[in-house]
């Protein structure tokens, strides 16, 4: 197994990092709280990378690690990690326009319980960015897919702790009669795994942001005449936190590699990745606030923007405990 990046991958990651640092500063994430349209110029930059939606999972993951680092709002994740792979799996004619960045979409699967699993409910939950994308792909209980204009369904926002990612409840009753395309349930399982792996990678980026902020603060904040980062209690907390982030980084990359290889390990690896990323995200969120002290508790400080993204992501596409439970089902079949 080789975790080394190719020259192209290094370039992709560096480009993403520089682009997001410039186009998605904390002020944009903050303004997005009250005005989602501020994310539009960002999308006009990110859409050049929409083709990642149908490439190797490892490349997509490298990119979304950076969108997670920036807590980027907008339709990029929904379009590339959910919608495009689904279109590819059903050989849909819209795919080329999506990969060209000319149109956007999202996917509606979960029912009332919020789990990304096949069900026959008409009201779909936790559909990201449903009001601002062009298309919604609705997946029914037998994994049949209906790709419909988002304007054809009614949406209602479900507000969460995270302002940077917007979720919607979507009533699909009006489009229940639209033409449907069969998706092999095994293909659905792979798509789900890919979405979870991409989210894990995104969360690794958010965790790293929170960790970097804590580390930088620990080096600059002086108390008792020394940087707080010289105190062992702070050092050991940061050492453990960085372990959590490093472990999650490796687990997410490994999961992406197993998906690209269609390896038998892939489902286990994806549960491991999302759980490790959830652990890293919540841990770095908590440690970072604690290490910042009072300033970290303020609305004015940017820390909470990333804390919110971290917590919101933990609860999407399966919590850490949910992934542990699914992993247990694979390790210890009943």
């Amino acid at each position, binding site marked *: 197994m080789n*975790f080394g990046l190719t020259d192209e991958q290094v370039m992709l990651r560096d480009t993403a990092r520089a682009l997001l640092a410039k186009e998605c500063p904390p002020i944009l994430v903050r303004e997005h709280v009250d005005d989602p349209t501020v994310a539009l110029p960002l999308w006009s930059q990110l859409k050049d990378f929409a083709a990642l939606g149908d490439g190797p999972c490892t490349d997509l993951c490298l990119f979304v690690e950076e969108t997670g680092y920036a807590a980027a709002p907008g339709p990029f994740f929904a379009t590339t990690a959910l919608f495009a792979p689904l279109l590819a799996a059903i050989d849909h004619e819209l795919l080329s326009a999506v990969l060209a960045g000319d149109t956007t979409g999202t996917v509606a699967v979960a029912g009332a319980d919020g789990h990304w699993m096949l069900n026959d409910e008409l009201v779909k939950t936790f559909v990201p960015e449903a009001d601002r994308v062009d298309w919604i792909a609705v997946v029914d209980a037998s994994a049949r897919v209906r790709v419909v204009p988002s304007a054809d369904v009614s949406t209602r926002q479900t507000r969460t702790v995270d302002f940077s990612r917007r979720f919607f409840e979507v009533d699909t009753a009006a489009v229940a009669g639209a033409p449907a395309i069969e998706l092999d349930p095994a293909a659905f399982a792979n798509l789900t795994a890919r979405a979870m792996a991409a989210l894990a990678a995104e969360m690794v980026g958010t965790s790293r942001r929170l960790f970097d902020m804590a580390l930088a603060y620990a*080096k600059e904040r002086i108390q008792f005449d020394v940087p707080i980062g010289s105190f062992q209690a702070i*050092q*050991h907390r940061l050492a453990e936190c960085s372990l959590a982030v*490093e472990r999650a980084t490796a687990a997410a990359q490994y999961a992406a590699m197993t998906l690209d290889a269609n390896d038998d390990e892939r489902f286990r690896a994806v549960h*491991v990745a999302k759980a490790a990323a959830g652990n890293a995200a919540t841990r770095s969120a908590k440690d970072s606030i604690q290490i910042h002290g009072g300033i970290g508790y303020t609305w004015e400080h940017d820390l909470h923007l990333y804390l919110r993204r971290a917590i919101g992501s933990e609860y999407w596409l399966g919590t850490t405990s949910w992934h542990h439970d699914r992993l247990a089902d694979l390790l*210890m079949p009943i």
Partner: protein
Amino acid sequence: MHLSWGPEEVAFREELCAFLDEHVPPEFERGYDYAGEGEGEDGTDIVPEWARQWQATLFDHGWMIPGYPPELGGRNCTLVQTLVYLEELASRRVIRSFHYPGYGIVAPSLLEFGNEEQKNLVPAAVRGDTIWCIGMSEPNAGSDLAGLQTRAVLDGDRFIVNGQKVWTSYASVAQKCFVYVRTDPDVPKHKGISLLIVDMDTPGIEVRPLRHLSRSAGFAEVFFTDVEVPVENLVGGLNDGWRITQGSLAHERAGLWVEGVCRLDATVQSLIGVAERCGRSRDAGVRRDIATFYEQASSLRALGHKGFSSFAQGSSAPEHSYMKMATSEIGKAASEYGMELQGAYGAVMDPERGEESGRWVNYFFLSFANTIAGGSSEIQRNIIAQRVLGLPRS
């Protein structure tokens, strides 16, 4: 980034497997999770005869340290092939040797810092014909190794050594010892340390075995009273010992992550078996806990490989600093969980109740060796904070 090994590694593994299928001694079927404990109390059976023969067989076939040239028990393998080798051995729960200091610390240190004559000691150290022990720790110098006080005074063509080492593993059976001594007490403590090769049968050396927590023989105290050591046994320069300690510790850590990770994997797999035998494998809490251990173990394996990939590309691999601390701490938690799964029987250690009885208590005890020896977990966290994260020293 890609998952599979290339054809060269696959062919390499096949050759290795053919060798192992033919030569692995049957004694390994009993399962060896840890070497370095005898059954008796004096420590003389720590390295059983069959294990000595196994190590010699590996050496003679070029499978002891595959990255070394044939005359040193290897076959000039690449780094990646070495990784394949370590993983294959660990997945079979086969260990190369029952005494790691010789091949793991002494050999690489002598190859890097020794003179030509000292390098001649390497083949026997790797083949296991010479058993070595490492005399670093002292009663007043543990984590703070540089505080060591065992004194060596140059007197013509020999050093006179006086002092005491402690926790010296293999001292009861070793022929030679790497002894770190103070050769200049008047300079800052890191600058006055030297490394000597000492024959354990030199007059003035007394070894007093100490038993491990488990009650079995393990390490020892070693006393030095006017021990004469020829000056040519100095390794590296006079007062240059600290640099070598840093080298030997790095050698100790470099390949150990694979064994740490594989041992942890095996422990987690065994937990599943215990849960089944104890009728707890359907308990939702137990299932979640075991999956959590699995998640930790397999993400650490990925982290080790990730570090290895940068190492093999010639970059530094900060990932490896995490591995010892993480695998040992999680291993401790997992072995404690093995006890907990057995309910009221968790603390039973009664041979009449079957071979398994007390196994997890033993794992639990042994797990402390890993969180204390070779740099405790607290010291590892200091290292991560200061060297990897760049935080200021306190």
